[in-house]
């Protein structure tokens, strides 16, 4: 049997600032048969996306394919001319990007972009292309398949865009489709729909797929075989079943282990009812836009939420994107002053706006943002980033400050040598640790963690959660943990609040093995992928119907 894709001895190099070329893919061999789905799995920086892109004959700026062959449908993408490669892109090999929101041109209609492949390669007349596109929209179970193409990318949701990106890839009838982390940015409930749609369409057309992901559970639902990558080298290749049940390589084992986070390890709540709550919120409302005649903002994102956090305990807030959980965090932190309700912190009423809060109140309540990339000033060294709150809150300077910076780096398990680096030189996990260390530098009583693990790989995220737990034991902190990822929240929180459309629908205490009651909570909890390869096929919920309800 001749394979559709044959990769032999593939190496890719990247240039460094000093102009040296270093190998980032170190000799990869892989065959993919027609209709087969192979998943590339590994942490970020493992080279999985780079490897997938070579199938298109493409290396990102600053990179080059330096050796080996990548035969796709008989053509060696490495040696073809740029023009010949362009002729195969979209028709033989197609690509579904990680973030469809960024990959759609904001200035053109969706339909124009979906059928662009047919225009570029003159595959069919525009009318026919449009009919085909609508059929694909329908097959991918997109709402309003006839009208959605006339909209602009910003007018449809992320999950829909991800499916539209798939339609864009499929319209040229490719033999191979590369899915580059297509569901990573989506809510779990949306992820289920998208995965189902992908699986159905590719199976029906017998398309060979490369599925790039760091999420083993997702991969388990969709792939036939798994290739595990680390540092540009293949660690292990095998069928899904083999990898899940008989992993041989240590890294694979680590990956699997990260999937069963240690929910224990936390003592039962040190229930001291006599102490007043650290944070208490009563009927808080907040939103965006200019105030209306009724005194409320134009868009009300949080509607009368009340909650309590006791000293030394953690509160989890879960919900899908747009449910108001981040807005809630921002109004607690005073970034977005609430329009109604009151916040009690450490026994005192807090001003709604951070500007009016006292120095001490600001210090005691820290917030850590989701994206360490934007939360760390790229122009400053780690030392400066960590040193500033020390100087600002505690007046530390010179030697004393240096000592404390080192202590903080130790605390978050980072080598001290990193202090002179800049954020761009760190990995995602390292950045998030720095981000967290900065909050610790203030020596706060409460830290608001806004989706701090969402952008991280499973293994890294698990490590961060472990770190948080450890620090809590040492420092007696409290966390408010905001996430859409149930496993993370379950791992660390004493109490979980489920938010839906700006309101709390349910409070769950994991230690009590309590099951969700509210239908939305049920959906949310059941949408979290399981490592079981049959999970997706046997799941009997209909997310779309649920959302309409």
């Amino acid at each position: 049997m001749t394979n559709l894709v044959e990769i032999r001895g593939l190496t890719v190099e990247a240039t460094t600032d000093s102009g040296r070329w270093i190998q980032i893919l170190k000799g990869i061999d892989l065959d993919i048969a027609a209709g087969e789905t192979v998943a590339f799995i590994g942490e970020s920086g493992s080279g999985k996306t780079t490897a997938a892109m070579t199938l298109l004959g493409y290396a990102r700026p600053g990179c080059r394919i330096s050796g080996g062959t990548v035969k796709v449908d008989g053509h060696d993408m490495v040696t073809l001319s740029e023009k010949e490669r362009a002729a195969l892109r979209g028709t033989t090999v197609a690509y579904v990007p990680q973030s469809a929101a960024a990959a759609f041109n904001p200035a053109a209609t969706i339909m124009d972009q979906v059928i662009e492949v047919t225009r570029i390669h003159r595959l069919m007349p525009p009318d026919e292309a449009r009919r085909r596109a609508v059929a694909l929209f329908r097959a991918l179970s997109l709402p309003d398949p006839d009208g959605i193409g006339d909209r602009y990318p910003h007018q449809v949701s992320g999950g829909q865009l991800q499916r539209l990106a798939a339609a864009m890839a499929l319209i040229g009838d490719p033999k191979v489709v590369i899915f580059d982390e297509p569901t990573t940015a989506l809510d779990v409930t949306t992820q289920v729909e998208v995965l189902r749609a992908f699986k159905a369409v590719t199976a029906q057309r017998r398309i060979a797929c490369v599925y790039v992901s760091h999420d083993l559970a997702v991969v388990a639902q969709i792939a036939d075989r798994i290739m595990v990558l680390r540092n540009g080298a293949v660690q292990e290749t095998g069928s899904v079943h083999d990898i899940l049940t008989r992993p041989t390589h240590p890294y694979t084992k680590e990956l699997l282990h990260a999937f069963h986070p240690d929910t224990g390890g936390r003592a039962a709540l040190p229930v001291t009812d006599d102490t007043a709550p650290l944070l208490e919120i009563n009927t808080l409302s907040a939103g965006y836009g200019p105030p209306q005649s009724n005194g409320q903002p134009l868009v009300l994102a949080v509607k009368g939420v009340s909650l309590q956090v006791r000293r030394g305990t953690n509160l989890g807030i879960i919900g899908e994107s747009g449910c108001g959980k981040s807005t809630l965090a921002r109004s607690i932190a005073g970034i977005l002053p609430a329009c109604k309700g009151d916040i009690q912190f450490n026994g005192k009423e807090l001003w709604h706006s951070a500007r009016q809060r006292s120095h001490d109140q600001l210090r005691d309540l820290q917030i850590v943002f989701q994206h360490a990339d934007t939360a760390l000033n790229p122009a400053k060294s780690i030392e400066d980033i960590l040193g500033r709150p020390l100087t600002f809150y505690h007046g530390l300077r010179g030697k004393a400050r240096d000592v404390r910076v080192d202590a903080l780096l130790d605390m978050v398990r980072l080598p001290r040598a990193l202090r002179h680096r800049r954020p761009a030189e760190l990995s995602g996990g390292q950045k998030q640790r720095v981000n967290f260390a900065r909050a610790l530098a203030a020596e706060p009583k409460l830290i608001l963690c806004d989706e701090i693990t969402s952008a991280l790989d499973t293994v890294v995220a698990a490590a961060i959660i472990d770190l948080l737990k450890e620090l809590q034991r040492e420092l007696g902190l409290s966390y408010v943990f905001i996430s859409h990822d149930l496993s993370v929240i379950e791992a660390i929180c004493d109490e979980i609040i489920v938010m839906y459309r700006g309101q709390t629908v349910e409070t769950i205490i994991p230690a009590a093995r309590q099951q969700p009651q509210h239908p939305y909570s049920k959906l949310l909890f059941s949408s979290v992928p399981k490592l079981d390869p049959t999970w997706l096929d046997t799941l009997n919920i209909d997310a779309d119907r649920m959302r309409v309800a």
Partner: protein
Amino acid sequence: MKTYSPTGILAARSGYRINLVGLVSFFVVLFWALVALFAPYIAPHSVGEMVDLDYFGPMRPGLWLGSDYLGRDMLSRVIFGARYTVGISLAAVSIACFTGVVLGMTSAVLRGPVDMVVSRLLDALNSIPSKLFGLMVVAAVGSSIPVLILTLSVIYVPGAYRFSRALAVNIDTMDFVMVARIRGEKLPYLIGSEILPNILGPVLADLGLRFVFIVLLLSGLSFLGLGVQPPYADWGALVRENIGGLPFAAPAVIVPSLAIATLTISVNLLIDNLPQKIRDRSAS
């Protein structure tokens, strides 16, 4: 933006990547800076001395760059002109960019009424053509070097403001600014430590272009009577006063034109090709 091939890299030993174009530009700028600094020691004649009975004289031994419209030594005049062109333009561009960038960042950080008022005022200022503004200033307060520098600065503040404000607004949306804000940081820290380092690159590139405009406007203003006092003259004024020699291809008009071109082009190429610290991720 720069995708020069790695062959242009000269030295990696210093830990900085140095570009050949940048190096050459640096030496040209350095050359003019030294000329400006040591003008009195290297000029063969005094700047006002008439040494040639002819005018627009050709290059010849003793008068290496020919003579100007009054028969003065062009070499000496260009050497002294460097002082004014380099000095005034540098001072003006620094003041303009400093003021503009600080105001721009302040507006971006404070938003609201401050932004509104400053933006409108500077927009209004920007809408008055620069040469006419210069003319009005001369008419109102007369001409001297401080007035000249200040006028040139004022003219270019709105441009620097617009530019830096647009950049700063983008930076201001980043979470790290928000973190600093809810830490309780005040304006000077926010603009100086959080925003400025992140817009410095584009601001410098903009400064280079503005430098060119200031050098040119300086020559335009000398045309309106606002300029360096004779017998001294900046390069633009030298071109202007000797423009009559253009039909004869007199060195008196060509040399200062070339001087302007070499300086302005080098400043820009230098900024575009500043040495970059090598951050080698593979080394970690």
